[in-house]
């Protein structure tokens, strides 16, 4: 399955590295990344392939949150977004 990781919060050094490190550890393959910094706020959206991942989705979310404290992080199944926003 594919999932979307979103990271929103105050911009800080190393945030990208922290998130991708956890993704690598979980065997989540990063397919696409878009990110922007607006007015000091960092927003990143990452499309990952979880077919090789051995963890549960909520384990991945917990690990990401632990590693990047102070950021709002969500991991959600890609289908949620495609079903809601594509006709």
């Amino acid at each position: 399955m594919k999932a979307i990781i979103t990271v929103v919060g105050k911009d800080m050094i190393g945030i990208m590295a922290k998130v991708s490190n956890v993704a690598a550890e979980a065997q989540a393959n990063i397919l696409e990344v878009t990110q922007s910094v607006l007015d000091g706020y960092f927003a990143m959206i990452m499309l990952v392939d979880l077919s090789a991942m051995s963890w549960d989705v909520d384990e991945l979310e917990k690990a990401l949150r632990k590693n990047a404290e102070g950021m709002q992080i969500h991991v959600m199944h890609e289908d949620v977004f495609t079903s809601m926003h594509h006709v």
Partner: protein
Amino acid sequence: MLNVSDILETISMIEDENLDIRTITMGISLLDCADSDIDHSCEKIYNKILRLAGNLVATGERIEKKYGIPIVNKRVSVTPIAMLLGASGGDPVKYAVTLDKAAKAIGVNFIGGYSALVQKGFSAGDKELIASIPEALAKTDYVCSSINVGSTKAGINMDAVAMMGKVVRETAEMTKDRQCIGAAKLVVFCNAPEDNPFMAGAFHGPGEPDCIINVGVSGPGVVRSALAKMDDRDDLLKVADKIKKTAFKITRMGQLVGSEAAKMLGVPFGIIDLSLAPTPAIGDSVAHILEEIGLEQCGSCGTTAALAMLNDAVKKGGVMASGQVGGLSGAFIPVTEDQGMINAARAKSLSVEKLEAMTAVCSVGLDMIVIPGDTPADVISALIADEAAIGMVNSKTTAVRVIPAIGLKEGEELDFGGLLGRGPVMELSRLSPSKMIARGGRIPAPMQSLKN
């Protein structure tokens, strides 16, 4: 790739605006559990519910984890028990106790179907079941009961209406040491839908398949927040359009979760109920949507018009999003479950009469209204008759779920806790309808019934 703002919108809907799947309800037919021996019948019921719904709660939790979407309730609805009672005879409360035991064993928070369909008259088991409701609801924790007393096709069974006034009162009396909670689990319907996933009115109609998954989505907070972002000068066409688009997104999520749940459980996917169902949580209120549209407080003049527009726009958006829309599908207005309604009732901006008018344009009826504890049974019956008449004439579902606050006076409050909420005792006309109720008989079906 998906649009960044779309993704962030979905996240904020779930995080900040209380978007959730309100309920996954498994409908189970108990027709094959009927037996001339009531104890055998109860045993078959218990085994069938455990066999089919044993994994319901665990499956719901797996879906929550997989998609990151909260699923608030997992529930079961069953064939109206009066049908089984007709075959078995005996003490109907045994069925209620069996359903309660099964609900506790599988971990669901409500089980609906302690019901009878008597719109045209009583058949075997119906009267006995109705008479047993107060005891059944006092002796159980999770069982919900509903009685259908009228329909557009059949008219209104006024004998049943007269009985239900007394039953509602007695049910409240028998649970008066528990905030009269029994009456909060009892609904009197006109045109009851057979596939409604929402409690307390859910039952599994005789026309339904053996086992099915129905889903209720919800999101008043999402709609309100979408409207809050609009310009105050945007006209109502734009407002209706915004509601429609938001309802579309909410329903699509329900469709995703419902089909996944059906697949995992290996049963057919029935319907999505699009209702906007409020909860007492801050920001999850239908009244606040009406206020966001532009009313000072819910209950003011204009409330019925705003609600009619909201109800219609929700349906239009939802119908586009799913091919399997059913149940009640509209806006709910349960007073004690909606913080905006509670505030309006406390401020006396909202009256029972205004609520009655509102029920003519939204999806249910007089719902979760606390009435004075000394209200006579005849007055409750007459209130049920009024509401059923609105449903009958307008070919829509209406219902009455009022809670007589035994021992409490106007202005005092009942507090049920959890999703059922809390609310003040509301004023009700004390003029007597006794002569009409005592007449009994049936209000004949209206001209609208002759559509063939």
